[in-house]
């Protein structure tokens, strides 16, 4: 193992010995100073995660969230120098983290926050104006849609959008009836601000199919196969209204 790899390993593993070629002041051991370095690495990465998942951190409290994040950092250090990309696997980790099982919706709230983060930093694109949509209308049966690059879907067995909204505005004490059903979310940044919307039954299957390149009739067929109550008009109107459509064309 070369020096750099040994140094990196010792940084992330508190049990690991400090490489013996590192000298402290006056040629003595470097244990204490290396621990300061180690702690700074952890603290900065935990800060990154706490900043990336602010609503989730509120839901379980800062102490629990940071302790959980610290374990994740130890297991999954960043694999890119770009910290914007750090944290994509955190929700999956939390889903399998036993101490978090009393909060079963936490992982989905984190997936929603990760989608929000991805949408925020995705490429800009101009939604098609209504006139352009109208011009394509007569050929709709042969068309595939190009959806906005910021578009993300989050599907949940829990009312994840409602939970996220309430926690985000500190509304935990508001009298509210949580929906018994799960919610699917559409996350999109049509202009400067990220928007989170609830999708109707079958909406997520429909949009996923379109994202995969299906034509409108194919996507509609998949959605109504999965949800008998799928409403094509409402789902199309939702896509148009939210600015999710940035291009249309005949499928190859």
């Amino acid at each position, binding site marked *: 193992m070369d020096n750099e790899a040994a140094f990196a390993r010792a940084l992330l593993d508190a049990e690991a010995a400090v490489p013996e070629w590192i000298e402290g002041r006056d040629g003595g051991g470097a244990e204490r100073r290396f621990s300061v370095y180690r702690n700074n690495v952890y603290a900065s990465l935990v800060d990154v995660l706490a900043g990336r998942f602010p609503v989730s951190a509120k839901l379980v409290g800062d102490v629990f969230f940071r302790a959980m994040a610290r374990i994740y950092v130890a297991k999954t250090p960043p694999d890119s120098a770009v910290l914007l990309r750090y944290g994509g696997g955190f929700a999956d980790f939390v889903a399998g983290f036993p101490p978090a099982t009393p909060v079963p919706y936490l992982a989905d709230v984190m997936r929603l926050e990760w989608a929000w983060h991805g949408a925020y930093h995705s490429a800009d694109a101009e939604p098609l104006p*209504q006139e352009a*949509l*109208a011009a*394509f*209308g*007569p*050929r*709709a*049966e*042969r068309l595939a849609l190009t959806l906005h690059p910021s578009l993300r879907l989050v599907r949940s067995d829990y009312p994840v959008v409602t939970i996220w909204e309430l926690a985000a505005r500190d509304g935990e004490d508001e009298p509210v009836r949580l929906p018994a059903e799960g919610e699917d979310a559409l996350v999109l940044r049509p202009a*400067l*601000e990220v928007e989170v919307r609830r999708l109707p039954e079958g909406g997520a299957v429909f949009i996923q199919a379109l994202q995969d390149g299906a034509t*409108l*009739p194919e996507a*509609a*067929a*998949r959605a*109504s*196969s999965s949800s008998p109550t799928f409403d*094509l*008009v*409402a789902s*199309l*109107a939702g896509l*148009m*209204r939210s600015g999710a459509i940035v291009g249309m064309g005949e499928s190859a």
Partner: protein
Amino acid sequence: MTYQTKTISGVAVVSAFAAALSIVAFAAPAAAEDEQEKCYGVAKAGENDCAAGPGTTCAGTSKIDYQGNSWKLVPKGSCETMELPDGRNGSPTALERDRPPA
């Protein structure tokens, strides 16, 4: 149980598309009603939307109230007329006032 994929006719899709468009056209707010613009120098500390530059890198990171190089989205047209303490005004471009110490 047999898995049956429903088919949707092209005619149905064309008419659904037209119906969706008419819903959207009907419900669309009057132009410019809900537009927003970036407004510098009006956000309270930590409540800015985003900005680049020394002292503030992104959303929620401005250090002081009404920081001149951080911005917030506000309804279009309200930026420069917004009333702020001590005779300050917002601006659609970054301001030199109220910068955090380097």
